[in-house]
């Protein structure tokens, strides 16, 4: 598997060391491409949009300029249900990018949407110990820097 990694020698600095270094602590927002603008506009309206190919009917994630299946530019969007199941997750307790230190602990997950695509997201509104693979979750939107990131929370029974 993989190559370059985060590791203990480059763990986020202590408070003292951080003051010695100039970190840009601005939380990152998505680096949007022209063809993914619609996705992020949708999240502002509380919609989880999924790109689809009108020619081969593929559901596309992440959004592309052309369909990755048939190279058609005849693309459109549908609104997803916002419901998903957790495929895997990992709860972070330390050694994250300094920009996110104030949010620890937090849980990153892969979730499988009902529409058949997989996203990376955060699981919120529950204790990390209660999160499990296969759990049913639903989308909510979290604002950051003018963007509305799709997060997921357990489906309320």
């Amino acid at each position: 598997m993989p190559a370059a990694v985060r590791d203990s020698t480059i763990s986020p600095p202590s408070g003292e060391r951080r003051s010695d270094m100039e970190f840009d602590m601005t939380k990152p927002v998505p680096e949007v491409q022209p063809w993914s603008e619609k996705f992020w506009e949708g999240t502002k309206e509380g919609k989880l949009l999924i790109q689809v190919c009108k020619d081969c009917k593929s559901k596309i994630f992440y959004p592309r300029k052309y369909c990755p299946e048939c190279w058609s530019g005849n693309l459109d969007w549908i609104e997803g249900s916002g419901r998903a199941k957790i495929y895997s997750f990992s709860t972070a307790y330390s050694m994250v990018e300094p920009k996110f230190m104030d949010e620890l602990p937090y849980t990153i997950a892969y979730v499988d949407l009902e529409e058949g695509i997989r996203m990376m997201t955060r699981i919120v509104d529950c204790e990390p110990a209660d999160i499990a693979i296969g759990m049913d979750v639903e989308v909510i939107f979290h604002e950051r820097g003018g963007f509305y990131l799709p997060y997921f929370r357990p489906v309320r029974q």
Partner: protein
Amino acid sequence: MSKGKIAIVGIGEVPTANMPTRTHWDIIYDTCMEAVKDAGLHKNDIEGVVSVSPQAQPKITAELSFGKLPEELGLKGCKDTVSCNAGGASTSNCLRMAEQWIHSGIAKAVLVQHVTVHSTIPLADQINFFAKAGVDLQWEYPYGTTYNIIMGLMANRFMHESGCTPEQMASVVTALRSWASRDPNSFFYKKDVPSVEKVLSSDLLNTPLHKRESNVLGDGGCAMVVVSAEDAQKMKRPAAYKLGDSVRYFSGTCVMRDFKKVEEGFRVTAREAMAQAGITKEDVSIWNCYLAYPLAHPLVAELLEVAPPGKAGQYFLEGRMSFGGDIPWSTIGDAPGRGHTGSGVSAAHYVETARQLMGKAGERQVKNCRYVYQNAGGGSGFNNIATIWGKEI
């Protein structure tokens, strides 16, 4: 690639250690000169130089890609030089470039090298580089993911499906460090091998990854001299012959990674490389697996059919992959034992493969070492390249 076209006939290496006083060029001189001498060649016999591109070190990367190495070492016979960056798969591709040069007639002897000095990179620059390396800036990074978390996602799913326990996962560190503690070039040479309990009692970084299941960055470097298999035979020196290879691409973005496709990719590349080499898995003397994180090792041990499904964790816990066990596995300790030298970990793995086949591995020498499985993976795992190396054609 067909069987037995090239061979590694010389190796050079410096110990992995954080030594800020040891510059990039200091390491390059020592490793390259050692490799050329080990091959029994003169410096002017080297007709091509291929460098593994260092990660997060723009100055040395630029110097190498702008052709300074042959000039610095006075390689008067050098006809061309190039750098290659495919992340952790760079070394495999450097060897392919050497192979192409040798068989197209450009060069009879090619020097392949890697150098890394992490310790002089300002901490903020390190954090900024590695925070984004291999992480998609639109679909992953904004959520606060990291390389460690991506590994945690994979490991949690594997544990869910296989039933592998935290104790079994932690025992991989023990296994890898048991080899590293006997390797003079490893970061943890002569250091205590942590017990399973010690691994599990270290800080939890992100589930299920503990601090001792992560990696420590290190400085290091190594070099190899490659010639045609025919010339290697004529040189009558210990050599490692490339007998087969196979590769599959998976995906560049972690969230797009189809785990089943990855699993099948590991299986099929191993089968294809072994078929090309004319061997079976029973013939493999060492499984030299470069996976960077210990948590990936049980999964791959099962994919390579070294362990039956659901049993790899138990194999590691029983010490079967440890020094002295019956399944020699990652005999430099992979990145957790060697110290993480970026793409240099894969270069070090290849040097170890050659060293074992040459019979120069000292205390770690695997008896009757005849065939070695060696893999490399690029970036955050976009592909897997499997190669088979042998003591003879």
